[in-house]
């Protein structure tokens, strides 16, 4: 950190900082409101300007422009957050759960009736949706100590609705299967 101090000292920022903080503690209203800035004067008083093309600072502008599309994840050795890229294409299981445009697993919680009814929804299912429903139901029944669980399958829109809040359980299960 000492070197960064040196860097700051080199650019005069340290000195400026000291000046600024001193003036702030003595003059409270200074520089803290746009009302304290001067009104526009006649144009002759201002310095002349010129447009600079391909300026060295343009890279700082480019950094501020947002990407047009969602960036693709880069392959890494490990992902500390627990997120992981999709690995399976569903050829061995017969079904496929596509990722969302934000590269997340499409498992959601729908709450209705002021939070009284909680339904876990798995979306973007392709292929044999009934096989997936059977697998997911086994996972949920294990999570609730062998008690039965109610499900509903919408084959056309590729969605499975599961009674109860099992979002974390199902998301982890799907991630473990590579989806």
């Amino acid at each position, binding site marked *: 950190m*000492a070197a960064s101090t040196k860097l700051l000292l080199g650019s005069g920022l340290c000195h400026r900082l000291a000046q600024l903080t001193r003036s702030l503690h003595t003059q409270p209203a200074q520089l*803290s409101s746009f009302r304290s800035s001067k009104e526009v004067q006649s144009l002759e008083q201002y310095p002349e300007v010129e447009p600079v093309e391909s300026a060295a600072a343009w890279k*700082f502008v480019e950094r501020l*422009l947002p990407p047009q599309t969602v960036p693709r994840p880069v392959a890494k050795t490990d992902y500390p957050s627990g997120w992981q890229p999709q690995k399976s294409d569903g050829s061995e299981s017969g079904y496929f759960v596509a990722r969302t445009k934000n590269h997340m697993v499409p498992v959601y919680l729908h709450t209705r009736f002021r939070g009284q009814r909680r339904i876990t929804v798995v979306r973007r299912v392709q292929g044999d949706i009934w096989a997936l429903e059977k697998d997911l139901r086994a996972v949920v029944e294990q999570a609730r100590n062998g008690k039965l669980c109610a499900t509903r399958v919408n084959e056309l829109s590729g969605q499975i609705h599961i009674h109860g809040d099992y979002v974390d359980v199902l998301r982890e299960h799907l991630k473990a299967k590579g989806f």
Partner: protein
Amino acid sequence: MAHLRETSDKALKLLRTLPRVQIGNLRPNPNSKQNDKRGRAQHGGDKHGAGNKGSGQRQNFMRLGYETGNQPFYMRFPYEPYYKGHHMKRQYPPISLLQLQVLIDTNRIDVSQPVDISTLCNSGLLNLKPAEMEYGFQLTDEGLDNFKAKINIEVQYANEAVIAAIERNGGVIRTAYYDPRSLHMLSNAKKWFEKGVPIPNRMMPPQDALDYYTDAKNRGYLANPEEISKDRLVLAQKYGYQLPRIEDDPSFAMLSAAKDPRQVFYGLEPGWLINVVDKTIVKRKK
């Protein structure tokens, strides 16, 4: 994945044998449209759930807190100080270290550059509303143990554990104040550049925020850099980790990059005008 899309293929196959779908033979699903008319008298008229007589039937919804003639609860006590000035208080919407790590893992944030409000807003997953008294982001300690990124981040509020989590990985954290106008510029920089206005100076913090941002313990942007480097060591000893030497780091230039206290954007000086269409910067003539 073609072999897995049997259902949609079947539906499309069925559709090919059916007459052409056009506006003339389409109709809404049964019961999908709700009639917003309330019939009267013989046209299906009854109470319609509004009950008999009184403000219920007349749908005379009373104003909030009105107790039909009683002295209302909110006026019963002459002095309620808890919410005094609540509409003036600065809000700092939270982002957790876990969220930040997810953004990094999914390539929404480039950690090879310094991270500030504009980087977070440009990810498209976070937004800031300066008009609703939101003065920037606070970094919270959820997912602190799994945070592994080496970043140079600037937030508006962070507690001690978060600072330690960032510095343990060889990163740099700074807390900085932005006035609402600068926040507006940072939250959507492209849109602001399109206005074609010179970049203004960033304002200094108000008096009640000054102590926070001049304190080295908070890594304030107005604190003495020497005190900050001392406090980095103190924190490392307190939390029991070896402080990585950022001076020896190959990305030292990125890690030590800092804005001037009067500067809004990295590398762009106040007074410059950015032309996004022509890709030029309008500067003072030398």
